């Protein structure tokens, strides 16, 4: 299969105009010994064969259309209204590039302008750019901006230990060639004061996440206190946040953040095994103008836009709107708390989130998380939570459970039942298999009639 329209006859005519005999003659500039190498690739497939292969590959995966998912940790299973895909699959959007020529790119330009307006509204900030590769790189870019604002004289970057570990990784990667010292990651979990204490004249910025990686929600007053201390030291406060949480909770712009950024995937982008996602990035214009001549445009190349995923997020925000986003946040909140309550009531499990939390919470489990998850998946059709042990040795055998509006009450109760069954002596196990979620859902159908 190829997508080349020209025929041999076309090529013959064109070669004549070009003035060469054969197509191969066009490649004389390539050193001969390197010219026309053999490519050892599997034979070409027609579309029909390709679809069969793709189906076979897809069938080897267990997708979330058929599983109950309690896994988050940076990628979230929120509801995506079908209208989103129906719009982004319009060729006029996805086959148009960066709007270099505004007169014939008004569709993309206006959509981006609206995206920025909505991100600004959501975060309570003053300006937004069109987007970054993902949440992790948005955070890293925020750090680089802070370094520039500090004229590269402030070299300390204070990373909260409950900033998503992958985001911290990317900050390390991005700044490895810079004169940067990253500190803070060994501070006690959830202790904003410990981070504030590190702020001195060498500090470029403090980066915290709210709700943090463990689901903990910091109150605006706590955050404002942190902001005041950070600003007092002349540094910037960068807040990574979950956009869904902003449907309900005070946005970073209202408690002193200089930059609010994060992963916009939960807004209208499918999970897609981790990408493409889209990082949002909003800031206070005044703060930045005051502190430095440079503004964000400079480090963020136009080529870094994820215009298409930003479009999905824009459509999502417009579709959900004021009420929908709030409701998604409320459902998420109440369902997560209900799940926490059920799990905490189990004999061998303990919920370790003490402060307010949103969407995710930490559960101490009686067996290794990997083992637990394997049994949840195979016996119950449940994708269990994130294994915190790898990132936080002190949280070995702790699971980060994520609950969104997508988790029905039945699913939540089944999770609790499954956890109980798995922790119980082997004899009780068999029960579980009969009540796996797949079956529960199927038996619902006939009730309709």
């Amino acid at each position, binding site marked *: 299969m190829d*997508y080349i329209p020209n025929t041999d006859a076309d090529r013959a005519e*064109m070669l004549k105009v070009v003035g060469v005999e054969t197509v191969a003659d066009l490649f004389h*500039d390539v*050193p001969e010994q390197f010219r*026309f190498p053999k*490519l050892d690739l599997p034979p070409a*497939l027609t579309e029909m064969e*390709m679809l069969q292969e*793709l189906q076979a*590959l*897809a069938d*080897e*995966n267990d997708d979330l259309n058929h599983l109950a998912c309690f*896994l988050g940790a940076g990628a979230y299973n929120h509801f995506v*209204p079908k*209208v989103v895909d129906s*719009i982004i699959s319009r*060729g006029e*959007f996805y*086959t148009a*590039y960066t709007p270099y020529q*505004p007169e*014939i*790119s*008004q*569709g993309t330009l206006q959509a*981006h*302008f609206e995206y920025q307006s909505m991100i600004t*509204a*959501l975060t309570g900030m003053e300006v937004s750019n069109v987007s970054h*590769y993902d949440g992790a790189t948005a955070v890293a870019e925020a750090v680089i901006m802070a370094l520039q604002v500090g004229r590269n004289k402030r070299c300390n970057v204070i990373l909260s230990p409950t900033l998503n570990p*992958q985001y911290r*990784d*990317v900050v390390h990667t*991005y700044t490895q060639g810079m004169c940067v010292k990253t500190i803070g990651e060994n501070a006690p979990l959830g202790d904003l004061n410990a981070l504030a204490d590190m702020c001195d004249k060498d500090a470029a910025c403090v980066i915290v996440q709210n709700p943090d990686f463990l689901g903990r929600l910091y*109150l605006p007053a706590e955050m404002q206190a942190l902001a005041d201390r950070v600003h007092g030291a002349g540094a910037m406060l960068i807040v990574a946040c979950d956009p869904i949480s902003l*449907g309900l909770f*005070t946005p970073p712009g*209202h408690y002193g953040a200089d930059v609010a950024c994060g*992963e916009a995937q939960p807004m209208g982008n*499918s999970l897609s*095994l981790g*990408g493409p996602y889209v990082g949002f990035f909003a800031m206070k214009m005044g703060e930045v103008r005051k502190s430095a001549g440079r503004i964000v445009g400079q480090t963020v*190349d136009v080529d870094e*836009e994820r*215009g*298409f995923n930003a*479009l999905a997020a824009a*459509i999502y925000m*417009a*579709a959900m*709107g*004021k*009420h*929908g986003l709030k409701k998604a946040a*409320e459902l998420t*909140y*109440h369902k997560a708390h209900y799940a926490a309550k059920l799990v905490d009531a189990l004999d061998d499990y303990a919920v370790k989130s003490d402060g307010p939390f949103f969407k995710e919470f930490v559960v101490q489990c009686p067996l290794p998380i990997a083992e637990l998850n394997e049994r949840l998946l195979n016996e119950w059709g449940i994708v269990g939570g994130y294994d915190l042990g790898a990132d936080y040795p002190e949280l070995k055998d702790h699971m980060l459970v994520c609950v969104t509006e997508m988790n029905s*009450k039945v699913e*939540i109760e089944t999770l609790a039942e499954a956890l109980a069954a798995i922790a119980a002596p082997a004899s009780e196990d068999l029960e579980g298999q009969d009540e796996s979620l797949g079956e529960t859902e199927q038996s619902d159908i006939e009730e309709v009639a």
Partner: protein
Amino acid sequence: MGEPLIYEICRAGRKAVHLPDVDVPESPLPQDALRGELPLPEVSEIDLVRHYTRLSQLNHSIDTGFYPLGSCTMKYNPKVNEYAARMAGLANLHPLQDMDSIQGAMALMHNLQEMLAEIAGFAAVTLQPAAGAHGELTGVLIMRKYLYEKGETQRDVIIVPDSAHGTNPATTSMSGLKVVECPSAADGNVDLAALKALIAKHGDRLVGLMLTNPNTLGLFDENVAEVLQLVHEAGGLVYGDGANFNAILGIAKPGALGFDVMHYNLHKTFSTPHGGGGPGSGAVGVAAHLAEYLPGPIVARDEDGYFRWEMPAKSIGRVKAFWGNFGILVRAYTYIRMHGAAGLRAISENAVLNANYIQARLRGVYPIPHGDRTCMHEFVAQGKLDGAPTINTMDIAKRLMDYEFHPPTVYFPLIVPEAIMIEPTETESKETLDAFCDAMIQIAQEARETPELLKTAPHNSPVKRLDEVRAAKELQLCYAPGCS
């Protein structure tokens, strides 16, 4: 004409989406943390659909017309790829799911790693970077780390030809290294003498060279072998900017030519759509000595055929969350599998033939600085016409819109004044190329006879020519929202 802003069509109380009511006992909300107003729009589903449908129609796109944007490889994006990326078994997977439950997806990624390595002649590939520029940063960090771990920590200079894309010096700076520009020679190749002088000058501070080949003039550097040899002899590494890889699939393997590291723009060469500027994928391939430095995790295959995530031993670290832009990888995989070796070579052959055909037809009509050479998949003309002193490249670009073509890339590369960079790609037919050439020739005549026609163009587009300078000054970055 002119679609109102989404905030201008909203109305208090409207809803496009309804969510279920809470079906669990409610928990008390932390009252202190609740936000006040949430100033998002309120629209119905029909208004939403009409708004975006109308907006979409204001765009020029590949699906509606020719888009010869040089350096961007705006080729046709196959529809089957869109279907593939949306299959539930590929799209609705959580990145952190148990590996047992995503072996199909990991097989796809592993196969893609291997195929990309083979196509460009590299030993290993990471799929993690999210775009070309991201791949560049990745590559430069790899070069840097490799040399540092060899103990050559003094090395901090990268040579970048003056024809390079702006992302090359930008990423170099971002990685903490210094950029030194190398001029191009009159024939469009790297100026060998200048290169030698620079290498000599920077001596053991040389990290290496970033080379785009074919370069941004659309020329395959005839001295590429010598250039690489010079850098390698000086202890440096050579980075290949693979943005122009569409010209040499099955024609040359950069890895075989001696490049140490290269990024692929999957969204260009392998035709994954990049609507509105993204998403893309900037997979990076490296020669064997750099394999352990790749960011990751990448997909490894056990002897028993089981796929697992694996972080390369000396990795520079991860460059983004998770594994890469999987949705894009599915499309690229589909594209490559459907082409095979002969199909890929046909892509480049036809892309190059199409570009040479336009160059031949426009030769003598527009100045083409290197028009005497065979070009690769694109070439650079100039918007300077004898007998039309007031006309510049931008005027020609805008006038092309009246002929329903997207203008080529303009004013890039910077080393060519009034540059018009034309890349037709292989997916355009001779008729389309002819129609475009006819329009360009017609415009050249209009430039002399009725220059006003160009100055006031475009005439049929959704909006008239925009004053971009003014827009940049009076920056309105967002709309102050509120529904009636």
